[in-house]
């Protein structure tokens, strides 16, 4: 049983921002934001037909500027936030905004791949509100409340974490509380993640080499992992099933797994990439599956069984494995208790800045490299059955 070949989709612009449509649980759908200084930027809505292995896309115009970060509302499929660069009078400012996709995009402008002309006439996003933070500096990312009702977002702007309440169908945004990172020099949040645990009262942020945890009720710091990485921390992700477990990655080429109750030592460290690791993601359902993307142009899927929430000792039936025997990627999965690299994906030729699991299909993920190439891959089938059975 061959694994399906990866599906590659090319954007005409460079791109860094990728997210899955969090509120969509049926269709496999990813959103990609482009980066272009010369042309109007776009948000590509990429639908993947798993049955037929076909990609279909829709393009929405994002005229506000080049997109550095994109994030979809967990409650409303049509709502999303972006962080974008706005150039005005020789100044580059990064802003955050909440957008709504025009209702027709799905039915109306579904283009056929053979008809490139349609793309010249895409629809615009409808601005709901700015996450106006001119007083707080440049927004690096906007985070939705996980599994929330789409009423709360946090934006990280320079050294501030701002909690916004969205009211009036998200057309009004007010800062309900904020936290500021104090310290020497110009501190700047590089990444953040809203914890899905503890009633969504915790936030983890990264600045320089440190990882900090915040209590959103008091907006105060609850832990700080100094020197979590040798160099800059690029991304964070919470284990969706284990409330104290956190993954981080950074410029020291390492991926580290932390138990935030004991911040002196990482629980586990992976050192598989040969350059900076820009993105790390736990699989939403099977948290032993960890996806990382790096500027060495590789995407690595790891199987971190030893620190996953799934119980040890799935019995391996020889029959199950014999199917995947001819699959070159599966050999390591025969030892169920071993942490291992499941697969290294080398379809990218430029730095991979974003990886994301599909919110609809837990066995499917997308990765985006700077040159605008989006690759959709699946977890090797043998491993999938191994985990399921």
């Amino acid at each position, binding site marked *: 049983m061959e694994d399906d070949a990866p*599906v*590659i*989709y*090319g*954007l*005409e612009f*460079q791109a860094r921002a990728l997210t899955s449509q969090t509120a969509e649980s049926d269709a496999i759908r990813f959103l990609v934001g482009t980066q272009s*200084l010369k042309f109007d930027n776009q948000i590509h809505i*990429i639908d993947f037909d798993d049955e037929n*292995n*076909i*990609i*279909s*896309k829709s393009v929405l115009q994002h005229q506000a500027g080049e997109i550095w970060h994109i994030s979809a509302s967990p409650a409303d499929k049509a709502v999303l936030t972006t962080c974008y*660069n706005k*150039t005005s009078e*020789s*100044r*580059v400012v990064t802003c955050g905004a909440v957008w709504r996709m025009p209702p027709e995009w799905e039915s109306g402008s579904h283009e056929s*791949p053979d008809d*490139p002309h349609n*793309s010249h006439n895409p629809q615009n996003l409808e601005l709901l509100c700015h996450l106006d933070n001119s007083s707080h500096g440049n927004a690096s990312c906007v985070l939705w409340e996980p599994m929330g009702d789409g009423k709360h977002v946090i934006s990280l702007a320079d050294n501030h974490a701002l909690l916004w309440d969205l009211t009036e169908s998200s057309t009004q945004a007010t800062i309900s509380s904020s936290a500021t990172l104090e310290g020497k020099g110009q501190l700047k949040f590089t990444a953040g993640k809203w914890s899905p645990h503890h009633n969504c009262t915790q936030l983890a942020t990264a600045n320089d080499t440190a990882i900090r945890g915040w209590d959103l009720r008091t907006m105060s710091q609850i832990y700080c992992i100094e*020197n979590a*990485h*040798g*160099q800059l921390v690029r991304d964070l992700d919470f284990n969706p099933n284990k409330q104290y477990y956190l993954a981080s990655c950074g410029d*020291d*080429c390492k991926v580290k797994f932390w138990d935030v109750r004991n911040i002196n030592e990482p629980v586990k460290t992976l050192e598989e990439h*040969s*350059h*900076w690791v820009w993105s790390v993601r736990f699989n939403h359902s099977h948290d032993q599956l960890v996806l990382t993307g790096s*500027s*060495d*142009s590789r995407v690595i899927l790891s199987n971190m069984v030893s620190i996953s929430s799934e119980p040890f000792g799935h019995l391996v039936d020889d029959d199950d494995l014999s199917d995947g025997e001819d699959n070159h990627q599966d050999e390591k999965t025969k030892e169920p208790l071993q942490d291992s690299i499941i697969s290294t994906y*080398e379809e990218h*030729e430029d*730095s991979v800045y974003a990886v994301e699991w599909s919110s609809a299909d837990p066995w499917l993920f997308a990765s985006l490299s*700077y*040159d*605008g190439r989006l690759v959709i891959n699946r977890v090797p089938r043998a491993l999938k059955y191994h985990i399921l059975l």
Partner: protein
Amino acid sequence: MDGDINATAPGTTPPDSDPARKRRVHGMLKLYYGLNEEGKTVDQAESMDPCDINGPHFDPEVYLNKLRRECSLGELMDQETCMVKQIRSLDSDMQTLVYENYNKFISATDTIRKMKNDFKKMEDEMDCLSTNMASITDFSARISGTLQDQHAQITKLSGVHTLLRKLQFLFELPARLNKCLELQAYAQAVSSHRRARCVLQQYSHMPSFRGIQDDCHAIMDKLAQELRQKFRDGGSSAKDLSECVELLLQLDEPAEELCDKFLSHAQSRLEADLLGLEAETDILEFIDRGCNEFVSSLCLVIASYQELFVNRPQEGELASKNIPQMAIGKLHAFVDALATRYFSLVERRIQEEKSVGDNSLLVRALDRFHRRLQAVAKLLPGSAVPSQGTEIVVRAARERIKQYLAALQSFYLNSLTDVRQALAAPRLATGKDAPASLPELLSTLSASILNQIKSVLASVHLFTAKDITFSNKPYFKGEFCSHGVRESLVVNFIMFVCQSSRQFCESAGDRGGSTPPALLLLLSRLCLDYETSTITYILTLTDEQFLVQHHSPVTAVTALCGEAREAAQKLLNHYVKVQGLIISQMLRKSVETRDWVNTIEPRNVRAVMKRVVEDTTSIDVQVGLLYEEGVRKAHSSDSSKRTFSVYSSSRQQTRYAPSYTPSAPMDTNLLSNIHKLFSERVEIFSPVEFNKVSVLTGIIKISLKTFLECVRLRTFGRYGLQQIQVDCHYLQMYLWRFVSDENLVHFLLDEIVGSTAHRCLDPAPMEQSVIEVICERG
């Protein structure tokens, strides 16, 4: 002549006509003149000739006829005169002889006659003598008969005398004992009492003897009391004491009690010795004192104890009590208990011996300790003491090895600190001279470590020296050498070197820069040297010195070498990483802190780039001091004069254009083109080889990749792009020479300029010629 006499004898002396008689006389004469039968027969045999005038068969007729026939007249005449002459002389001779014989006969006859008379007189005297003797015998018998009674009386009297003397002794005994007691001549008292005891016992039914016995008992009790007192006092020497015990034993004291008392007394003294030991500071003195005081006292105690209780000839009722067995049991317990305390003292003392400067002192001390315990072993076979002593020595040796390992390790760390200081100090003082001393530092470091190892080996070797008593124990022959010295000391140290080197990679990795890069480089070279030669050398040296026989599996040289190589590789990788990081940080800061949109038109190469080139050059020098050049690909003739295509990335983009087609397989032709373009995927933090070019390539790769990633995060104005162009050209001019494949530098710089152009709001590239002018001016 004889023949003549014989022949003429019958004629001249005819007294006996009997031929037999004549024959006998003839024989006697012959005897007298010293002739024998044989001579005669010889004569007979020789001269049968009848013409021989001297022969016995001479026939005058034949002779005469012969003469007449053969001789002339003259001759006959001569013969005749000659014969007459001879006859005459013969006649006179014969006359003389006869006369002599006659005289002799006469004197003999006289003598015989005189003897006859004398014998007769003697016979009379003998008779007289025998009568006299008979009378003497008679008298003597009578005297002895009379004396017999008196003799018996004397014997009886003398018997009474001895008895009386004994009695006197008995009566005087109490007084004598008292006196002895006064004079403290206990031995005499006891022996006196012993002599009298049986008698007194026997005659105790008689009141007078009973009195004496009681007195004696009283006195002896007192004596025993006094002896016990002396026993208890404990001031007396072991010899006195043993005498005491002997006496008490003779006084029928219970042996067991005596044993206990003896031992307890000895114990108190030995304990005093032990207490005295605790104050001693110097190990050798400590052991000496332990040996001389405690062990020798112990030996003395054992010896005298055995003399007293064990080896005594068994007599009387003592034999039935089986004293030796009981005594030996007690002795063993006693010795074991004391030895345990002594050993614990010794062990504690040895443990205090931490200074590793001079091992010979400790070895000598241990040797003495061990040697002295052999005496105990001889005295007390079957005792656990010597083996325990050996164990202590073994433990001490083990401990020593551990200490030496620790010392080696701290020496190594100290040397590293020294190296660090050496690396840091001259840089402050003399600037660029510092790197020049790297090879020296390396050789000094490795030489001093080697020396230290050698001196430690020499120190440890003392344990196995031939003149050390314990060196022939199986432990020191086998396990000590292979397991102790080779594994625990040498192998562990090498492992430690490798591991501590690795720790530099790990601890410094996250903090960044806590270890000076030069040290990393130096250590990497050190480990590499270890891998190539030093480890083999050290282990061979060890094996030779200690004649290691590998009974148990030992760490193979190859495994250690592998370990060292791994450490070297890791260190070098880390060096590359650290150096790359330093340059990366400069580049990153320079990109991140500038407002690239509003920058001015470039006039110069930015100072940062010059710094980068300078630093790279100095790294090149530094690495070159320790590592070989390595191979590089051939340079193109105009490496420094290469132009960038600013739009390489945009070209890329146009090539991508047809691939909009979602999910469609890409044009194969295009794919192959792209693959060609990226045929060598650049592994940024890949392991480097052990040569200069590879190291420099690694550092430059890391730096440029950082540059690229940073550039992509920024937005540039027109002049920002131009500045980057200038900077990249400058880097291009200087960096190509350091790397193994200049295309790599081209590729990365192309990417940087391309990405910058892409991130530029107003991408108007600078003229290549202008760039060159600016760069050359800089």
